[in-house]
């Protein structure tokens, strides 16, 4: 399902004007895992589930679960901006229109979001899950 990764990144980093979340994260959005030592804040996205649904002999739906993780580590003088980044991420992806090569995009909707904090390292994390429906 490489096409969904390409579609998500293309939405994040279009060739023209960049969306707010791109500026928030300094363009640092990675598939699966961020590189070692990456600067905060940054984001990671991944496909965590893919269920095909056959509703007619020749028609197939792909029901995908996509997870984003936003990370921030505020310094002593900076505040936690994760909610702002999350808002901008959601504005970009919730109910958006994706261009997925080989598929007709039907919908992308937020299913839930969940904030977490690593107390030892003071790292804030926001996990957000989207359901994506594609038609082959």
């Amino acid at each position, binding site marked *: 399902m490489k096409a969904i990764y390409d579609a998500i990144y293309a939405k994040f980093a279009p060739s023209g004007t960049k969306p707010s979340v791109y500026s928030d994260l300094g363009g640092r959005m990675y598939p699966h895992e961020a590189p070692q030592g990456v600067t905060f804040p940054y984001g990671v996205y991944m496909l*965590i*589930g893919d*269920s095909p649904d056959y509703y007619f002999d020749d028609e197939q739906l792909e029901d995908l679960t996509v*997870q984003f993780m936003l990370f921030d580590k505020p310094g002593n003088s900076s505040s936690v901006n994760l909610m702002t980044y999350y808002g901008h991420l959601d504005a970009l992806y919730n109910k958006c229109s994706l261009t997925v090569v080989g598929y007709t995009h039907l919908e992308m909707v937020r299913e839930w979001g969940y904030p977490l904090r*690593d107390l030892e*390292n003071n790292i804030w*994390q926001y996990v957000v*899950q989207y359901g994506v429906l594609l038609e082959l």
Partner: protein
Amino acid sequence: MKSGVRVDLDIPHLTKEVKEACDKAAERGAKRVLRDAKSYLMSHAKHPTGKLAGEIKLESSKYKGGGYAVEAQGPGNYTRFYATFVELGSIRNPQPIPYLRNSLKANRKYINKQFEGVLD
């Protein structure tokens, strides 16, 4: 001349029967999700010890409508709190192991079938 039929329904009894049947259907679905969540976790964890899998529980829901919950995190239980980081991923373990979400999703059709069976 006139004729008619009178049907007396014992609504409270009927409601009780439907509720019990739905509850059993929900329990069958939840047990399947529980089983698959454990199996998913054991087959995807880097170092599967079975500790977390052993702590995934099936609980009766506290909602008025009944039902069941498959839980891997309880308040005040540090070991179970770890379950969230495994499911969602974290800065230390960036690869999530979505054992609850994927086992629920994989069983959606099975669960629906259980309820269809009740209505047949």
